[in-house]
């Protein structure tokens, strides 16, 4: 192994060597620079690998042949090696990225770059306080030098502000250092840390050192100067500034904190969380991409500072957590800055230009997912572990703040992603193969570190999961025609079903059928797509992978990871819809919010363990159980879109593509239901403040069922109508589950199956209509029955089934429902459910009437039947609904007996095909027999009497002795339930929407107000900095005394 000092030596040496070169030989200079950086990176990496694999031990390097305190020492342990790797690699890649500008500016700029990387590495390795100061000053000088790389003249001002602030910092640092030395007689970090430093006279000195280094991290709100750099500097340099400088400074803070002792940890943690929250909040208000990235960097670094503040309590996992966050931040942020170099204009929506190159879009998605901490990236494991530690410590409020800020961060990033995918940009992309290659390398590194972190996690290595890999396989395969990919996808789903189906209990089995096999059936509709359909299959299969894994998951970690997979997959899927940008954003916001609630719940339930088997939820101590229950239920209810948490659903489901809507509505909603099943199965009834939480659930379910139905009746958009109806239907299911008895669960399951079938069918049908009419607005349609007979049949069967009218399968649900409520004491919420029943007719009738009946519009006269592939699954569903209506036992019976084993009762008696309960009977075959017979007889009678009826056309109606003017004015469709609205319209008051938009406005308002701090004046920033120092000092002293 070569000496790690070579990293410093190579940097410095090459920088000097550049001085010897001729002014004109820029190419040679560039090669020298890159060569030196490569050597540095190689050394750092080789040490990382060696240390990680245990081949060598950490090494101390002494200078001047003496031991500290008489000389400076440097250390290379695993953390140092890894960080230098990050720094040098960022430097190397950025150097390539900045190639053209470096060549333009010549060897001086390259030398400065080398010095910067060298100084950053030095800052990481040194164990000497003053040496740290020296390296910091070198960094400042190099940074200020590199800012000049930018062609943006505003960067000059930014660089100057930076220098001003750096001067102030260095004054603080120097004073701190000298008094620390005075008090301890040594500048060596290890020496100083041996003498415990309490809150004595030296604490001010220590404070100054610490705060000076923390200021280097650009803590909120004393960071305006840094953001200007991010905004105006060359993106290649910003990448270094964010990824490398940030990492190095963080490590310096870590070292000093370790030296200062645990008393100061709280200070760091406090500044960290304030920064994390503040920066993310401000990022909400940004429209400039690089400034947003700047805020995001500040936020991420604040987060890691928070983790550093917790270093003591994290123990062994500290490096794992902080490293995970840091490496994710570094790679993702560097990658994003590099991407920003390829986007010409600076508005967030200008990133739409990325769409010219699908690879870049994928990279963008990868970086954003990595930054947000989605699986399988390291930050995911880190967040998981960190939240678990926080929960173990009982730091619940901190956990809450952390998760909320993380949610804001995710919102910021996904808002941006949505803009990139859905907006249009006036500027084309500045394609550079080097840039693309570099970003690709970053993504490859991201995957590599994900693998490493997965291996270290002690959990399942998520990146090796077969379903995930299968989904990712479609990224390279995206060049194939959609049909081939579709065959592959269906085969994959069926295969996965066959592999995993064994050994599942009937409940999970049913969900597996719905989620995986159901997915395969719905994918049949995707055969309709022509061309390549880029970017559809990966998210779709990611979603199905998540659901497949969810059903088979055994531990909380697996469950949560699967949950995140399906959330992310479905987000990308929903985003594909035409006008879905804002809806996809609110979807991902709510979903991640729900997911974070799950995370918090699991963390609290884990009680110190890194993960736990799901069935151990039943053993959660009763002290915390209700809280766990509330959190988990909140997470699941977000997914089932219970009233109040529903506002994401209508838009998301309505704007999605034709074959996506049934997937996200018919299948995805069941994930939340499945979660609730598991939760209630394991935890049962819980009481919080004397309130039985299942009763709250009952009320929520009933409320959703009712209001969802009412709102549905008032929609003009067919898909929105169906979406609201889903809220209502899920309300029934939640209601049934929360009844906590055998029949309630059977009811929920019946609803799960039925809702999957008829909602998929209806969404497909409406989607098929939309394919032909190019609109979702029902009043623009009408009279399509003769043109789209098959679609009509499927809607007809769908609405009869859904409304619960015998003989179709919805009736079974209602029958079980009545039997279920017979054996419970809850009576009041029942009323809401009773009200929801007939309201269901309102929207269902409207759906079929305004689309298929009434007057045909001129422009739709030639409308053709929906495409075959969209019809095919519908017809399969129709067949299923009919047979399920006659023979419900084929599925229900097994599940019934399984639920019986859970509750230890058998309320239903199956005699042949007849179901008997304690209260009544349901004989589906007889019902079918009677109804079919009567129907056929009456029908024959009518044919006999009216066989010679004259077929007339649409205007042959009695019209008060006049004739209709035109179809539009004759088709009664818009505001169909006007009288109902008059009476019950008050239920439309958008309480939940107002609430959430209030929250969002408040956040944005705060952000807008807070950013007034950033006046742009360097002096003001310096003053803010000083005030910040004083404020922190006063708070810290108050806290210490």
């Amino acid at each position, binding site marked *: 192994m070569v000496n790690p000092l070579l990293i410093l030596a190579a940097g410095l040496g090459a920088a000097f060597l550049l001085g010897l070169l001729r002014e004109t030989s820029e190419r040679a200079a560039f090669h020298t620079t890159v060569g030196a950086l490569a050597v540095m990176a190689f050394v750092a990496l080789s040490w990382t690998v060696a240390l990680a694999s245990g081949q060598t031990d950490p090494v101390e390097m002494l200078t001047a042949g003496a031991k500290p305190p008489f000389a400076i020492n440097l250390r290379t342990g695993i953390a140092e090696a890894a960080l230098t790797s990050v720094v040098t690699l960022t430097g190397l890649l950025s150097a390539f990225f900045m190639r053209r500008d470096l060549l333009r500016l010549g060897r001086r700029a390259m030398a400065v770059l080398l010095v910067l990387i060298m100084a950053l590495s030095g800052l990481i390795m040194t164990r000497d306080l003053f040496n740290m100061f020296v390296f910091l*000053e070198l960094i400042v000088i190099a940074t200020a030098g590199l800012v000049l790389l930018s062609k943006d003249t505003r960067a000059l001002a930014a660089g100057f502000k930076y220098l001003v602030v750096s001067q102030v910092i260095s004054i603080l640092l120097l004073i701190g250092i000298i008094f620390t030395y005075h008090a301890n007689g040594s500048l060596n970090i290890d020496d100083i840390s041996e003498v415990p430093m309490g809150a004595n006279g030296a604490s001010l000195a220590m404070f100054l050192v610490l705060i000076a280094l923390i200021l280097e991290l650009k803590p909120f709100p004393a960071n305006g100067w840094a953001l200007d750099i991010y905004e105006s500097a060359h993106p290649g340099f910003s990448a270094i500034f964010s990824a490398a400088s940030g990492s190095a400074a963080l490590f310096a803070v870590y070292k000093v904190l370790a030296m200062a002792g645990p008393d100061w940890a709280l200070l760091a943690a406090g500044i960290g969380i304030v920064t994390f929250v503040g920066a993310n909040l401000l990022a909400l208000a940004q429209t400039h991409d690089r400034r947003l990235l700047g805020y995001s960097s500040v936020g991420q670094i604040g987060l890691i500072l928070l983790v550093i503040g917790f270093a003591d309590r994290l123990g062994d996992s500290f490096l794992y957590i902080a490293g995970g966050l840091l490496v994710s931040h570094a790679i993702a942020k560097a990658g994003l800055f590099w991407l920003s170099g390829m986007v010409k204009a600076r508005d967030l929506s200008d990133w739409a230009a990325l769409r010219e190159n699908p690879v870049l879009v994928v990279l963008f998605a990868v970086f954003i997912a990595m930054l947000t901490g989605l699986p399988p990236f390291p930050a995911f494991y880190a967040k998981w572990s960190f939240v678990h530690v926080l929960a173990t410590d009982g730091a619940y409020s901190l956990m809450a703040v952390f998760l909320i800020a993380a949610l804001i961060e995710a919102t910021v990033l996904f808002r941006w992603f949505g803009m990139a995918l859905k907006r249009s940009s006036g500027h084309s992309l500045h394609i550079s193969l080097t840039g693309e290659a570099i970003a690709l390398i970053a993504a490859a590194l991201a995957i590599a570190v994900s693998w490493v972190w997965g291996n270290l996690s002690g959990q399942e290595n998520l990146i090796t999961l077969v379903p995930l890999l299968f989904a990712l396989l479609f990224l390279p395969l995206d060049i194939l025609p959609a049909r081939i990919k579709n065959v592959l996808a269906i085969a994959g789903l069926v295969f996965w079903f066959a592999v995993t189906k064994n050994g599942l209990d009937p409940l999970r089995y049913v969900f597996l059928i719905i989620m995986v096999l159901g997915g395969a059936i719905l994918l049949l509709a995707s055969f309709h797509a022509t061309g390549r359909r880029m970017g559809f299959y990966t998210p779709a299969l990611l979603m199905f992978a998540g659901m497949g894994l969810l059903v088979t998951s055994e531990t909380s970690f697996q469950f949560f990871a699967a949950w995140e997979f399906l959330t992310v997959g479905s987000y990308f899927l929903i985003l594909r819809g035409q006008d879905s940008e804002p809806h996809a954003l609110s979807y991902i916001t709510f979903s991640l919010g729900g997911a974070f609630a799950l995370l918090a719940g699991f963390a609290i339930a884990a009680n110190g363990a890194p993960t736990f088997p799901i069935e151990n939820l039943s053993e959660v101590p009763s002290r915390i159980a209700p809280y766990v229950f509330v959190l988990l239920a909140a997470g699941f209810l977000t997914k089932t879109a219970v009233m109040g948490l529903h506002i994401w659903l209508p838009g998301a489901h309505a704007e999605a593509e034709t074959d996506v809507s049934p997937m996200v509505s018919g299948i995805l909603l069941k994930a939340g239901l499945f979660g609730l099943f598991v939760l209630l199965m394991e935890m049962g009834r819980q009481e919080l403040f004397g309130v039985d939480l299942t009763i709250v659930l009952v009320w929520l379910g009933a409320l959703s069922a009712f209001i969802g139905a009412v709102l549905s009746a008032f929609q003009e958009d067919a898909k929105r109508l169906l979406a609201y109806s889903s809220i209502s239907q899920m309300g029934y299911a939640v209601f049934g589950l929360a009844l906590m008895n055998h029949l309630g669960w059977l009811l929920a399951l019946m609803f799960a199956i039925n809702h999957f079938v008829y909602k998929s069918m209806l969404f497909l049908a409406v989607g098929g209509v939309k394919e032909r009419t190019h609109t979702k607005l029902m009043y623009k349609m009408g009279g399509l029955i003769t043109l789209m007979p098959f679609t009509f049949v499927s809607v007809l069967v769908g609405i009869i089934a859904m409304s619960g009218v015998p003989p179709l399968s919805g009736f079974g649900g209602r029958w079980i429902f009545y039997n279920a409520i017979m054996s419970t004491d809850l009576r009041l919420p029942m009323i809401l459910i009773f009200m929801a029943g007939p309201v269901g007719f309102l929207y269902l009738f409207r759906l079929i009437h305004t689309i298929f009946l009434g007057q045909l519009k001129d422009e739709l006269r030639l409308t053709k039947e929906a495409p075959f592939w969209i019809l095919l699954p519908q017809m399969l569903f129709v067949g299923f609904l009919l047979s399920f209506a006659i023979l419900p036992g084929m599925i229900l019976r097994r599940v019934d007996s399984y639920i019986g084993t859970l509750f230890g009762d058998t309320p239903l008696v199956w005699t042949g095909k007849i179901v008997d309960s304690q209260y009544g009977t349901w004989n589906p075959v007889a019902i079918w027999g009677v109804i079919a017979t009567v129907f056929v007889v009456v029908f024959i009678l009518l044919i006999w009497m009216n066989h010679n009826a004259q077929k007339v056309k649409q205007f042959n109606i009695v019209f008060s002795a006049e004739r209709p003017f035109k179809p539009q004015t004759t088709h009664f469709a818009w505001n169909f339930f006007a009288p109902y609205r008059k009476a019950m319209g008050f239920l439309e008051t958008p309480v939940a929407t107002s609430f959430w938009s209030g929250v969002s406005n408040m956040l944005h308002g705060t952000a807008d107000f807070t950013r007034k701090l950033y006046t742009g004046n360097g002096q003001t920033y310096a003053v803010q900095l000083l005030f910040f120092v004083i404020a922190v000092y006063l708070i810290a002293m108050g806290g210490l005394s």
Partner: protein
Amino acid sequence: MTLVQISLATGFALIFLGLYGALSNRNILRMIVSFTIASTGVNLVLVAVGYLPGREAPILDTIPVASAAERITDPVPQALVLTAIVIGLGVTALMLAYAYRLFRARGSLDISDFTELKW
């Protein structure tokens, strides 16, 4: 008041004076001068903290090595000051370079003219 205390007081006075000057003057050149004053103050503080009354400068040419430990002042702060002065010089030079280029770009040396980057 001992020499150390006087130096310390002067040093801090210079620091505060420098900072006040840097933060209250809008002219960039005046700011740079103020920062120089502040760094001088810092250097003074550095030296003052390391000073031991009655001892000599740690120059081993004139003092026998054997008795050096008793006769010289603490060498570390001295070394620090030297380094700090060098670095201060570098930073000042860079700031001046910036001042030059800012003036070239905008024809102004007023720091409040360079606020287009904000929010």
